[in-house]
């Protein structure tokens, strides 16, 4: 082994030195025009992109942080945040699983994550573990042959400027809301997917994502476009616990579905929720919206939210095309001191549009959870239909669940149905299972997983299994 490598290994034990190395690639905290210019320059962006960011920044300056959500957190100091840090170099990552926190590995074990993926998820320099390049190349080739573009948003700005100009910010305008405006000004990571007319993406984009892009960023920006009759299934995040030194996360996801297109977007969110007092957890303020622009198009959101100290998130569908369909399937689990205000918006504009909402909220510990949903039916949306089912399950006596359904019905031919239930995890159900010999912990997870089944079956197969395991890990110790 070369002396240099030896030295590097030894130095790793000196945490201070390790941190200094990374800091040289990070801009000092604070946000002004020069920070944005720095980011844009680092990414090698054209001038129009910089102008777009600056426009967002100027609008953001005039906006106020929203206060309507049922959430309680101290004001965020936006000048104390650093808005850019370069991706870690392979030599700065752990070189093998031996260097990874054993607790993290234990969780992977419990989640049943395949051995060969654990290293990648733990941020181990991937090349040291397996040949990711060849895997990537295989995927790229297959996607390329199908005409599907799948790359980072930064690459897309450089390589496909016309598509970006045509679509970016058309679903979530730069000044849509406070966090979306901030994201538009400073986003640094995220994905771009373009599926051309008539093409069904040959693979679940999750498979690719899991192996290659587990390191997600603080201000992600994702844009997915399906042309006429195109289809794609995309999975973001993973069940493995994600830690990040950045507390504030504000992502924006935009989906565009043209005629007869179908986009299925699944999320498994397991950001660090903080310690038992909620200290150090991630604040997750996300704007996700899909635009069913074409007739008979369909957008389906499925989410499993278990992490973060604060979740503020309402994946929505704008049903513009005739007979377009929007779906939202959600499981949100909060434990400890977690707070979640989440739900969806279904905006019916076109004739004969349909939307379907199934939300399952589980609160344990001292956590607090709200479902907030808007169903808006415009005057031209003749014969529009919505069905909403919204169930809450409480575990223990100290957790809370709230439901805020909003309906704005603009014509008399619409049908809107809403069903809501709140139940405490049944003592009788628990007794029944335990009196068959099943342990209390297994009985809770059995009952909870049963409660979530309608949503889990919407997830891509392999993730449904992991999602169940994730639920069990999240609720560990919630009872008794």
């Amino acid at each position, binding site marked *: 082994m070369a002396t240099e490598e030896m030295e590097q290994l030894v130095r790793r034990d000196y945490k201070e030195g390790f941190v200094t190395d990374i800091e040289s690639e990070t801009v000092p905290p604070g946000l002004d025009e020069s920070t944005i210019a720095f980011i844009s320059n680092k990414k090698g962006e054209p001038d129009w992109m910089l102008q777009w960011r600056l426009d967002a920044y100027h609008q953001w300056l005039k906006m106020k942080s929203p206060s309507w959500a049922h959430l309680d957190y101290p004001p965020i100091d936006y000048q104390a945040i650093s808005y850019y840090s370069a991706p870690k170099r392979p030599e700065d990552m752990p070189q093998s699983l031996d260097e990874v926190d054993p607790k993290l590995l234990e969780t992977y074990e419990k989640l049943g994550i395949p051995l060969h993926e654990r290293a990648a998820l733990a941020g181990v320099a991937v090349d040291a573990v397996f040949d990711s390049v060849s895997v990537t190349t295989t995927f790229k080739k297959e996607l390329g042959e199908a005409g599907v573009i799948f790359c980072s948003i930064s690459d897309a700005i450089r390589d496909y400027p016309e598509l970006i100009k045509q679509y970016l910010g058309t679903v979530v305008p730069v000044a849509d809301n406070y966090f979306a405006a901030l994201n538009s000004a400073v986003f640094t990571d995220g994905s771009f997917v373009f599926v051309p007319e008539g093409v069904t993406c040959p693979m679940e984009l999750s498979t690719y994502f899991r192996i290659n892009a587990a390191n997600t960023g603080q201000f992600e920006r994702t844009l997915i476009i399906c042309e006429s009759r195109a289809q794609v299934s995309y999975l973001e995040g993973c069940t493995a616990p994600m830690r990040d030194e950045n507390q504030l996360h504000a992502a924006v996801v935009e989906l565009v579905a043209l005629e007869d297109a179908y986009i299925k977007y699944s999320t498994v969110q397991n950001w660090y929720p903080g310690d038992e007092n909620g200290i150090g957890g991630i604040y997750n303020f996300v704007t996700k919206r899909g635009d069913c622009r074409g007739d008979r198009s369909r957008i389906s959101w499925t989410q499993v939210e278990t992490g973060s100290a604060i979740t503020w998130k309402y994946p929505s569908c704008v049903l513009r095309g005739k007979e377009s369909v929007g779906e939202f399937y959600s499981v949100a689990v909060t434990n400890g001191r977690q707070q979640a205000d989440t739900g969806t918006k279904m905006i019916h504009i076109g004739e004969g549009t349909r939307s379907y909402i199934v939300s399952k909220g589980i609160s344990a510990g001292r956590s607090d959870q709200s479902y907030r949903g808007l169903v808006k039916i415009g005057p031209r949306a003749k014969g529009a239909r919505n069905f909403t089912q919204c169930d809450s399950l409480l575990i223990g006596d100290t957790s809370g669940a709230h439901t805020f359904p909003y309906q704005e019905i603009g014509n008399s031919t619409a049908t809107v149905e809403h069903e809501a239930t709140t139940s405490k995890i049944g003592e*009788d159900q628990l007794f029944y*299972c335990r*009196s*068959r010999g099943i342990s*209390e912990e297994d009985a809770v997870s059995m009952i909870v*997983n049963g409660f979530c089944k309608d949503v889990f079956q919407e997830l891509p197969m392999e993730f449904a299994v992991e999602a169940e395991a994730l639920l069990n890990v999240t609720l560990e110790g919630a009872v008794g």
Partner: protein
Amino acid sequence: MLEVKDLHVTVEKKEILKGLNLTIKAGEVHAIMGPNGAGKSTLSAVIAGKEGYEVTSGSITFEGQDVLEMEIEERAQAGLLLGFQYPVEIPGVKNIYLLKAALNAQRAARGEGDIPAPEFMKLVKEKIAQMQMDPSFLQRAVNEGFSGGEKKRNEILQMLVLQPKLAMLDEIDSGLDIDAMRVVADGVNSLRDSKRAILLVTHYQRLLDYIVPDKVHVLMDGRIVKSGDAELAKELEVQGYEDIVEEPAA
């Protein structure tokens, strides 16, 4: 096998069982009869470990183990199994999944590994045929949308799969028509052997025409006031509870 001594049980500050004694040996079938509110269901619930019942004095031992010190699941793992009068629904959990989880939990407690899938399927198919239930019940959520009779058959199906040492059946006959009663009784009878015992809690004598008990106990006002053989049940049918106790103790 089961020894209940001077058991006093309070529910919400009201004393329900007031010094109950009961001894069940392996191979025996016991029936506890009595009017509504006598404490029949309380007895089986306390033995199974249901919360909300306070044992103020007395003891329950099962094969020498102190039952009151055991967790609910440990009692089941030891071979004590309660068939419910009102089985609960568990949405989203498949019947077959519950069966398998319960069987494997009990096997694990005995130091055995999980049952191999083909063996389990064979076992369940055989038992579900015995209970004259459609195999589609296995894929439905536990008790969800089941009729009263289907729920009771399902309880016995669990017994047949789990093979408890002591099966306690709480009002297993309530809500059954005569055909269903026969199927349920046949199921229970198939559990009878020299190593096992059965405790039936029932309001009506009718069930005992199908499952003939070795011993019958009359439970009134928190105590067993009279014990006898299967004939006692028949006398009860004719005379009613009040008259039976008013007879001078022989």
